[in-house]
């Protein structure tokens, strides 16, 4: 009798948060299935690849408490590698993407080895510094095409589906995006994810309980770099371009901003943030207003007015429905 009571009790809040996340995933899937009939699909595909970058930043910022300012390095390097292997070596989409994502993830291992020893401000600075090294490498290196970048990356085909067909391309991007979303969902709802949250809350306490936060941070960082790399390769596939803006620190900033505006520490937040930011970037470019100024204002508004971000603030409303 007592037993059943406890079991029910102890599962409620988990299911509660869990349910909200499931609902969020379903809504996101529905949105991206219906939206291409009303909205320009390239815009949506851009938003999805950016959202993957946002999710990867959010995995660290929202669930481990680490602010990375260097995720453009994984995003950009993966975009370049995808472009190089697909265009110059003619490896095809699947293999090029595999190589590109592996490359970005390995770079993540390198970054993690250096960065996870640092905390807070120093962590942000060291990731920024490392990413700048990668940026200047890309400026100098031959295979990136310098200022021109890699243009006209072929789309080819995957598993017999020609990606020249727009609907196929959209389907492929959507599948990859969903994989990333579910991947993050699994991580944050795993025993490992539970430890990450504990480390975010109180790393000293975790140490005193006999676990070393550094190993957890290391793994989380590599997983995050893996996600950012997928985002970069997809972006290169969609736009058929890999160029310097992809590795520029402003791209890292975009990743942080998307997580922040959407709501850090929420599963769906970075996706909402990405849609919002990509929409704002495209819209403002049309009316000729400076994107950077807008982003600065948006950043300030988020930090000053709605710290929990769009999804986080919506999440607050749920208590009024009880």
């Amino acid at each position, binding site marked *: 009798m007592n037993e059943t009571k406890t*079991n029910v009790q*102890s599962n409620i809040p988990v299911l509660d948060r869990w349910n909200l996340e499931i609902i969020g995933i379903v809504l996101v899937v529905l949105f991206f299935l219906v939206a291409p009939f009303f909205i320009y699909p390239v815009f949506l595909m851009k938003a999805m690849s950016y959202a993957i970058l946002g999710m990867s930043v959010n995995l660290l910022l929202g669930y481990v408490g680490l602010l990375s300012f260097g995720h453009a390095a994984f995003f950009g390097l993966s975009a370049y590698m995808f472009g190089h292997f697909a265009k110059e070596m003619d490896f095809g989409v699947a293999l090029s993407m595999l190589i590109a994502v592996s490359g970005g993830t390995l770079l993540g291992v390198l970054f993690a080895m250096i960065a996870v020893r640092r905390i807070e401000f120093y962590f942000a600075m060291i990731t920024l510094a490392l990413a700048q090294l990668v940026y200047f490498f890309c400026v100098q290196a031959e295979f990136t095409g310098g200022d021109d970048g890699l243009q006209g990356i072929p789309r080819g085909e995957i598993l017999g589906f020609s990606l020249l067909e727009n609907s196929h391309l959209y389907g492929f991007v959507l599948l990859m995006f969903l994989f990333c979303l579910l991947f993050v969902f699994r991580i944050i709802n*795993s*025993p490992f*994810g539970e*430890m990450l949250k*504990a480390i*975010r809350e109180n790393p000293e306490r975790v140490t005193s*309980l006999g676990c070393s936060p550094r190993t957890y941070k290391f793994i989380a960082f590599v997983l995050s770099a893996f996600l950012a790399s997928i985002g970069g390769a997809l972006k290169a596939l969609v736009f058929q371009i890999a160029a310097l803006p992809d590795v520029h620190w402003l791209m890292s900033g975009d990743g942080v901003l998307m997580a922040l505006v959407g709501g850090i520490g929420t599963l769906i937040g970075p996706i909402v943030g990405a849609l919002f930011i990509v929409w704002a970037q495209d819209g403002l470019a049309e009316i000729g207003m400076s994107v950077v100024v807008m982003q600065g204002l948006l950043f300030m508004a988020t930090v000053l007015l709605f710290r929990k971000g769009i999804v986080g603030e919506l999440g607050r409303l749920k208590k009024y429905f009880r």
Partner: protein
Amino acid sequence: MKNKSDIILETKSLRKEFSGFVAVSGVNLKVRRGSIHAIIGPNGAGKTTLFNLLTKVHQPTDGTIEFNGRDITGLSSPEIARLGIVRSFQISAIFPELTVLENVRIALQCRRGDSFDFWKPKKTLFRMNDEARGYLESVGLDDSLNSMAGDLPYGRRRALEIATTLAMEPELLLLDEPTAGMGTEDIDRTADLIQRCAKDRTIIMVEHNLGVVARLADTISVQVRGQVVAEGNYETVSADPLVKEAYLGAAHA
């Protein structure tokens, strides 16, 4: 476990210097198994430094620390936690954005070893729930399993921290000013709690509240200017002229 001698923890001429300033010097502590051992002393006596040496926040400049006859001087704090020495913090160390139950479960996860299994569902943790609830029951928190830990009032946070610590099944518990900043009611409740935890465990605590010390401690070490000047039970220590001098000034000695 093999070595069940009477002394669970022993320090030998423990010394810590901070760029020339000697915070702890020549401390030979012998802590008896199963006792509550309090370390008291006026502000700046080096109690916290001594505590930090025992919990591996600092490395001693000189001297050794032995736990169950094994030299643990060079080990890190996660390592000693796994040997069975677990500490609490002055400001209640909880995970505020996790639920009360999840807080204790973190300790159970740590005790089991590292959880790098990011591919497994959270459900695999639910079988720890009953064990976690047991520890929460022992501190009287089983009525708020699903509250966010950060929403608990101060005294109950301490109870949660202790439940989390107990979940590690420590042989030796190190408490850093367990009643710091509490009101009378919470102090009493926490003292009761410590007394209950002391069953089949050893506790070392740094404490300012002499009432709590008098009530709980079997042995008291009085630390003044880095050195232990007196040791014994409350009566012995409170009668010691050196202790009176340290607390009240030379005129009263």
